[in-house]
């Protein structure tokens, strides 16, 4: 066989490329959405029934109509929107800084055991501390301004981001590292081409969990000492005895964190195109 034409090498195609699985409605036949709505409405119905009928005193727990009225009046002012913006900004900065510190550190710890050996005991000491225990010290160092709120968010979330990153880095399939080296990859290329993309799904999952934790941190910090933010709004509403406003604040927190989570899911789908096919739900 002397210098064969390339066409001699061509093998019959395995299958035509048009055979991709068709997109389907999510779990058609299982009325998941219907049951979701049923859950929400039964909770709402129970609340309305208990409060509007006078069975529970509105002083004790405000009725839906009181909360709606309060929401309507405050949504017309800048107060509510400023509060949401102030809290969101603190979470964004504190969580962003925590991500910038913890993700690279976590990858280093997952990939290089001496780094893990040095930092592990430190984490064991810091991890049991809830972020609110940092409030006295951070107030001493940073006063009660923005820096202190951001520090609380940072302290509350960086360890979780770190732990998730270390775990996902360690779980990268060693066979893929072997395969990459066998194809000529050096240490740096293994990091960039295998360890980083291989751990990205786990890191992003960790970031989503930590984002919710970051929100709870900022709210507790705002309840202790702040003039702005959703936590401060709730706390001052309590001082004025305005329970409907407390509930409006709580609903706003839920809604804001939900929206943040939705955005995070979109970002995840965009960053992990190969995972879309794995979980067609």
């Amino acid at each position, binding site marked *: *066989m002397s210098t*064969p034409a*390339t066409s*001699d*090498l*061509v*093998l*019959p*195609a*395995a*299958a*035509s*490329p048009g055979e*991709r*699985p068709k997109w389907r409605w999510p779990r058609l036949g299982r009325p998941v959405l219907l049951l979701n709505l049923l859950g929400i409405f039964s909770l709402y119905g129970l609340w309305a029934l208990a409060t509007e009928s006078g069975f529970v005193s509105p002083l004790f727990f405000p009725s839906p109509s009181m909360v709606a009225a309060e929401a309507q009046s405050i949504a017309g002012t800048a107060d509510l929107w400023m509060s949401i913006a102030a809290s969101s900004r603190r979470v964004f900065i504190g969580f962003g800084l925590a991500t910038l510190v913890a993700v690279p550190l976590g990858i280093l710890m997952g990939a290089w055991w001496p780094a893990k050996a040095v930092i592990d005991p430190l984490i064991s000491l810091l991890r049991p501390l809830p972020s609110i225990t940092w409030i006295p010290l951070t107030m001493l160092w940073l006063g009660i301004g923005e820096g202190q709120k951001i520090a609380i968010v940072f302290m509350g979330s960086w360890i979780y981001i770190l732990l998730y990153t270390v775990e996902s880095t360690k779980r990268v*399939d060693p*066979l*893929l590292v*072997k*395969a*990459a*080296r*066998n*194809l*000529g*990859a*050096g240490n740096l*290329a293994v990091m960039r*081409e*295998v360890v980083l*993309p*291989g751990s*990205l799904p786990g890191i992003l999952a960790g970031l989503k969990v930590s984002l919710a934790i970051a929100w709870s941190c900022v709210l507790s910090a705002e309840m202790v000492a702040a003039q702005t933010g959703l936590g401060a709004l709730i706390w001052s509403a309590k001082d004025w005895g305005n329970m409907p406003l407390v509930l409006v604040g709580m609903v706003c927190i839920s809604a804001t964190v939900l929206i943040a989570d939705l955005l995070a899911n979109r970002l995840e789908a965009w960053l*992990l*195109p*190969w995972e879309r*096919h*794995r979980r067609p739900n």
Partner: protein
Amino acid sequence: MNTILSARGVSKRFAGHQGGGGVLALDAISLEVREGEFLCLLGASGCGKSTLLNMFAGFVAPSGGEIRLRDEAITGIDPRCGMVFQSYALFPWKTVRENVAFGPKMKGIGRGERRDIAERFLAMVGLSGFAGHYPVELSGGMQQRVTLARCLAANPEVMLMDEPFAALDAMTREVLQGELMRIQAQSGKTIVFVTHNIDEALVMADRIVVMSPRPGRIAAVIDNDLPRPRHIEAQSLPAYAALKRQVWNLIAGDLMAHAA
């Protein structure tokens, strides 16, 4: 023919659980792989055939003896010995094209040329239309074709294949065997192929190294002179049956011992 890859008095002992003597997986193996040949390592489970292959790739270091490629000792993972894994080991976050272009990328070849190389080898394995897909979207047989193309694109001197078709259904396996033989005939690559399937060895190999277990040793090296192409008709020839019986007799005892 020239020797391209050789094992010289290679042994491997795996450490025991409680500091005992451990398991002797390979006992003083000496073997020469000739340039351009299709060599099959055949044997029952535990004969050390995969361990030997992993040593050729540099994944496992010998406890004694040495592995030499073109008369240089192999001391670590060496891209000149490309591995095709049984479980594919494709990068799930890379498209089929990016997977195949990985070896060229590691060599510093530019984007445009990488793309051409990938297209060429994808055409060779019959997957031209799938360059933009992710591995998870492909069937097992197609994923193994991608692995084959990825290995070829990295242009190794020797292709090491660790039971590459064992996880596939019987019909897909037969198709891929035929394709691998054609690819080898065209590319002239040296292939070391591990299998526990006698027919697979008889159909594909130029030489068959029959190994026996506990400890892993070479029982016999058989020249396979059956005429090519070895299609289904060739498998009904008396010569084929005779060779199959010869190989079977060499490993039957090991298989019975393992099954018992």
